[in-house]
């Protein structure tokens, strides 16, 4: 079997059994990135030299029969929002174009400790603000299924890199759908874990109360494996949960028979493309055949979700992004006349349009006299949404819907209409507002493009979400075509 056909878990087995060396694998993927990424543009920074060093270390250990981590030697790509010590971390922004972090975040540390060679930092929408990856200072990412189309966003680079076979697996982050929506557009598996399951220490904040790092992989088993690597309590993150974790790679092997799930009515009808609904409904039938009990539920508060999200996220962002002011690090204009000019010009030249739009939105929503009408109301809606989901989970194990209303759209199609762009997050934002685990699993094609099946579970049911994801995967036998079609 060729290296490209192996999943991350399979690669790990072959590296441990010395059928393959980590160095061979890294070299293989480096070669593939070199030949493909000129067009796809998934990488902002490539770090093959670092990856090779890590690979050699793993190989040396294995050669000496020393203990290595379970998935040691399998290369990975990391969204450029995750801080990596000594390796440029730009957040796809001009303002951090040359920022080299002096520390490792918790997830980056875990990746290194687990011996995963880092191939580079992946493209994204600037500061994770966007749904098409067109808001990157480093240029848009192309969808490996069709280079005229967007890969989704904000973790578009991560999704495209995995789908194109530039890396076996990748890390993304999800604030309102930023893992699941691009996973859906690119035909891969993406999981946004329960809020607090994965440390945010070292994840550059977009909206602190919504952000979560998660795996983006070719299949569910890889997602479970990568989650095992990155999840866990972290004393450096005060919102991190201190709980015992199940073994996700074992959990996905369990049967889904008698799982009781419900289709979210508001997200599975009007406003969703017909092709998508067809795929979704076909998948439901197959799940039913596998013994899953399927009903329908109405979650009326869903209609507030998008508005609440687009107030809360920008409000937090307006504060989180205040630190980029040209004073201590990052982009700074030359010869400022005074402090105010230094601030204003560095920020207006350093940030892209979408980031500025959201900073203004958020600043406004928090302003004296407007707080209650905007931010305060959004918080109330958020509480309602959370309560509604909690009640739903008293009856159902999991809730499902399509991940996106449309398949991957064309580059440039929605850039001029932010509201239309924001609508692509309509199915995904609720899980972030409620802090719930949610996955997108490919479940077929519509007009030749991948369709994502979204699963949402109660807090800390990540293992259940993954278990149903596995059932969807088994039922649909989805094929990630670009892996073979894109030749290096």
């Amino acid at each position, binding site marked *: 079997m060729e290296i490209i056909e192996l999943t991350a878990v399979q690669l790990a087995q072959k590296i441990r059994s010395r059928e393959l060396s980590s160095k061979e694998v890294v070299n293989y993927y480096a070669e593939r990135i070199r030949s493909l990424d000129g067009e796809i543009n998934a990488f902002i920074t490539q770090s093959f030299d670092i990856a090779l060093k890590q690979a050699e270390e793993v190989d040396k250990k294995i050669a000496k029969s020393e203990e290595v981590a379970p998935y040691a030697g399998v290369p990975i790509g990391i969204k450029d929002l*995750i*801080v990596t010590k000594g390796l440029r*971390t730009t*957040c796809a922004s001009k303002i*951090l174009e040359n*920022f080299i*972090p*002096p*520390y490792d*975040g918790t997830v980056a540390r875990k990746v290194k400790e687990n011996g995963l060679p880092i191939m580079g930092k992946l493209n994204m929408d600037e500061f994770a603000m966007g749904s098409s990856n067109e808001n990157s200072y480093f240029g848009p990412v192309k969808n490996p299924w069709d280079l005229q189309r967007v890969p989704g966003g904000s973790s578009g680079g991560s999704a495209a890199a995995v789908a194109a076979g530039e890396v076996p697996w990748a890390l993304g982050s999800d604030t309102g759908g930023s893992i699941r929506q691009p996973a859906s557009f690119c035909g891969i598996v993406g999981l946004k874990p329960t809020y607090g399951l994965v440390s*945010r*220490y*070292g*994840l*550059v*904040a977009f*909206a*602190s*109360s919504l952000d979560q790092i998660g795996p983006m992989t070719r299949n569910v088993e890889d997602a479970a494996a990568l989650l095992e690597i990155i999840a866990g309590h972290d*004393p*450096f*993150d*005060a*919102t991190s949960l201190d709980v015992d974790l199940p073994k996700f790679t074992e959990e996905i092997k369990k049967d889904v028979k008698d799982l009781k799930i419900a289709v979210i009515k508001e997200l599975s009808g009007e406003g969703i493309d017909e092709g998508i609904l067809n795929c979704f409904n076909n998948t439901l039938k197959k799940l039913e055949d596998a013994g899953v009990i399927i009903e329908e539920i109405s979650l009326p508060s869903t209609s507030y979700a998008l508005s609440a999200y687009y107030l809360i996220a920008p*409000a*937090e962002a*307006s*504060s989180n992004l*205040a*630190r*980029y*002011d040209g*004073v*201590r*690090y990052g982009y700074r204009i030359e010869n400022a006349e005074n*402090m105010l000019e230094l*601030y204003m010009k560095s920020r207006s030249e350093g940030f892209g349009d979408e980031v500025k739009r959201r900073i203004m939105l958020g*600043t406004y929503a*928090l*302003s*004296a006299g407007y*707080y209650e009408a905007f*931010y305060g109301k959004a918080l109330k809606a958020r509480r309602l949404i959370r309560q509604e989901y909690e009640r739903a989970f008293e009856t159902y194990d999991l809730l499902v819907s399509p991940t996106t209303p449309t398949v991957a759209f064309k580059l440039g199609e929605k850039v001029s209409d932010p509201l239309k762009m924001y609508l692509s997050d309509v199915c995904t934002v609720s899980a972030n507002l409620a802090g719930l685990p949610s996955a997108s699993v490919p479940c077929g094609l519509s007009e030749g493009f991948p369709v994502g099946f979204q699963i949402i579970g109660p807090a800390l049911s990540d293992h259940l979400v993954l278990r149903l994801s596995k059932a969807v995967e088994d039922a649909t036998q989805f094929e990630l075509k670009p892996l073979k079609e894109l030749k290096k």
Partner: protein
Amino acid sequence: MSLEKLLKEKGYEAVIGLEIHTELQTNSKMFCGCPARVFGLEPNTAVCPICLGLPGTLPVPNQKAVEWTVKIALALNCKINEFSQFHRKNYFYPDMPKNYQISQYDYPIGVNGYLEIETSKGQKRIRIHRVHLEEDTGKLVHVGRTGRISEAEYSLIDFNRAGVPLVEIVTEADIETPEEAKVFMQTLRSVLLTLEVSDCNMEEGSLRCDANVSIRPKGSTSFGTKTEIKNLNSFRALEKGLEYEIKRQLETVLSGKKVVQETRHWDDANKRTVTLRTKEEAHDYRYFPEPDMVPMEISTQIVEKIRSELPELPFEKKKRFIREYSIKEKDAGILVSDKEMAEFFEEAARLSNNPQAVANIILSELLYHLNESDVWFSDIRITPKHISDLVNLLESGKISSKIAKEVFAEAFKTGKNPEEIVRERGLEQISDDTMLESIIYEVLNENPQAVKDFKEGKKQAIGFLVGQVMKKTQGKANPQMVNEKILEILSNN
């Protein structure tokens, strides 16, 4: 004319509220592991990615700092909010690494307390509006001719102080005079020192004070337009700054103008307040709940535990000193103003049967020597036992008060026991009558002129004669006794 008189004459009164900040001396900063005691360190040496607010870092609250804030709030008789929360206070300033300060807003740790103070006019209760916890900012150094930001060639930032736990204490507008404000600050300082949460060094900035001031026609129930005065960072500055500002407001009002709501800066060098920013330039801080932290729940159990561990506070201690040791109220007040002094006094007072005499020695001799040698109680060699021994020597008439001063100085210098000093140097008072009489006769014989003067009615001549006897005995005689004896001898002859 004194300010008080002036106000009275014009029919006005001042309304003052204070906003005090004190840095907590915990081991580590508020949200990271860097040391919190940073004064005097090389710039930017006590920093890490977290307190520098680097992208991706997160704050994790220092539990000790939270407990200490509860302690302060309890000492100020506050109600502790069971549910407390951090908020972000958003504004741009280069001394703030994140361009927001993690502070508290509508759920501070403590609310609705009070502190009793004692002014020249008696006891008064100043209500405490709130006590909350936040992080300190860094420090700017403006390099240029004047050291002011507007005229600086460039500015340097030291982030050592950024993230040091900072407690904000806000009073109600219960303070009426600059003196009350000063006494409040002094009392608060001694409370904080007793709690051992801060070194309260105003020069080093670990205790800072801003004030809100307004004036109104006496008896009015509504408030006048207030100004906020910043940089009142010594007791003197606080008193002088308030005096200046109240006078300025009074003059403004009396000349028919209106006080403008603004923030003013106390210029200590020129002894005046100057406009810092007007109301229009005030920030909209856009407070919102800090999403990087979960709300704090401070259980009744924890509160009660902290309450039970509170040390005796100065005000209570003062009452107890008066009750247990029957010392003068004024002396008790001074003794409890410093924790170490109070402890030193109490130890000595317990060993002695004349606590007032112990207090006298501490408040005169000891304070004098401490001042002279610029040390404090923790660094001295003289012990409480020495003080009580000295009192015993005095009480029993073994030494005169003049000799006592000498013995004290020696004991202070060497740490030797006063009894030993008296013995070694033969300083015991001459209480042997015959011996004293023979010395007196000697002096009378040597000074016939003085004797003659006395007999001719110049009564003050006796002072000279007593002095001569004291000189001959190297101070070891009891001057009172010498006086009596001379009178007795001369009137019998």
